[in-house]
């Protein structure tokens, strides 16, 4: 099947124009994220149990997690738009465009990921400014992994958007995914703490496993590994994100093509 780059670029441009329409919303969202870092993380830092948590500074620990949080929120926005297009039947117009279904689907997933990266950039720069600057190869790896993660998240969001018939159902599903992925990850607390609770039988083992294979944990820990030196960097961190991204990009593209062709 032939795939035209210009068609994909047109879709990316269309989604970016939509994204920039929400500029005040984005400013608000960034402010909320920064409030998390400069208020919540600073206060938690003062009540941190260094020995139990295995970290010395919560602000530094949380800053990489916050960049991943921002990436997730913005990459997920594409799903909300696609859900709305489906309900308002804008997808009929999309189908009438001179491009293949595959180009349309790839363009949507790609733009969702790119939007996530752009939104997350100020948060990542804040993290670098306060926590530390990675070397150039490390920076390239961070951006590449976060881009893959953003594509995977936008794929997941599109898959949910096309499988839910109303905005309320989409928001509910998003909430469930959000809470499961964030609270069972090392975004807010170290993975070792979750594993410890699991060993003590105070935390369900399936959730411990979810936290271990969670791409949000991998991405946050990879940035921490480069900036803070702990946890130790492992190739599994990258693999976890690649698998997540591949699974959800393909399933989203497939689901999107199938659903928008349905009468």
């Amino acid at each position, binding site marked *: 099947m032939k795939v035209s780059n210009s068609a994909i670029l047109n879709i990316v441009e269309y989604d970016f124009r939509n994204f920039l329409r929400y500029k*005040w*919303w984005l*400013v*608000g*969202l960034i*402010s*909320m994220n920064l*409030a*998390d870092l400069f*208020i*919540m993380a*600073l*206060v*938690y*830092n*003062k*009540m*941190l*149990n260094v020995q*139990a*948590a295995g970290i010395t500074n*919560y602000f530094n620990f949380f800053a990489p997690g916050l960049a991943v949080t921002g990436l997730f929120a913005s990459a997920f926005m594409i799903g909300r738009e696609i859900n709305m297009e489906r309900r308002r039947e804008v997808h009929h117009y999309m189908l009438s465009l001179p491009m293949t279904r595959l180009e349309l689907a790839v363009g949507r997933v790609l733009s969702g990921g790119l939007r996530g990266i752009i939104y997350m950039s100020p948060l990542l720069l804040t993290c670098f400014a306060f926590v530390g600057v990675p070397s150039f190869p490390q920076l390239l790896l961070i951006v590449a992994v976060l881009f893959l993660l953003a594509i995977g998240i936008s794929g997941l969001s599109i898959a949910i958007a096309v499988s839910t018939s*109303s905005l*309320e*159902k989409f*928001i*509910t599903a998003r*909430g*469930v995914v959000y*809470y*499961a992925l964030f*609270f*069972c990850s090392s975004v*807010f*607390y*170290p993975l070792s*703490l*979750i594993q*410890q*609770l699991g060993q003590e039988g*105070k*935390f369900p083992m399936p*959730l411990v496993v979810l936290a271990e294979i969670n791409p949000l944990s991998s991405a946050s820990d990879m940035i921490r590994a480069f900036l803070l030196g702990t946890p130790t960097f492992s190739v599994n961190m990258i693999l976890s994100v690649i698998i997540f991204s591949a699974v959800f990009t393909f399933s989203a593209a497939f689901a999107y093509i199938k659903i928008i062709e349905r009468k």
Partner: protein
Amino acid sequence: MTLLTNKLFLVVERDIRLFFQYKFLIIMRSIWFVSQIVLFGLIASRMVNISDYFQYYVAGLSVMMLYSTALFIGFDIYEEAEHGVFEYLLSLPVSRRQLVLGRSIGGGLRAFIYVGPLIFVALYVIGAVNPLNFLIAFFSLFLFAFGVSGMSITIAVIIKSSDRFDILMGVLDALIVRLSTAMYPLAVVQQANPVYGGLTQFNPVSFASDLFRWGTGIEAIISLSNPLAPLLGIIAFFSFFTFVGIIIYDKRIEGGGWQ
């Protein structure tokens, strides 16, 4: 008098019915509440060096939940303006004051009806209650919910764009909740930053959280020696936003001022 009360009751009843139509929202908020307790609360309590932090956090979480649910009335006002329901409401044989007061009470009451069972879940998780203290705390939470609902209505009618309202509510929520004692004790906030500490001290979410903890009767999480000051703070918050809200709403709704 009975007729006036009946009309007020009808406005309150309508808002409560309206809220329970948002089934998915209700489900989602409940999932959020439970996952905050069993996931975040449990793990975070291991990470901090504050004894009984889990109980402390669960009590604060109930107040956060009450706050965010009571805010929701503002979004209803935008929905109504957008779909032309406002004109219908104004055509009803109900005075403007009754309409506004009813909406403020309805907004607070529906939040309370929804969060009430979750508060009891929180009490069960925390494990204790002092009945007399808790009655006072419960009453203050009622006033708090009405005050938040009044605040939401006031902001909704001042800001005419639903997008701007959505953003402002998000930012306000982030600041009001984080600069409160809902998640951490005042002494720690003051230690982290004296300015934050000052703001946290005079925050209605802090008043409600501290009173709720005081109402549980669990010594380890009580941060109040005298509940009078936060109680007065909540009464002031409630009075200001309920009555100022009524005046502003009353003025704005005439002559298509909400459009």
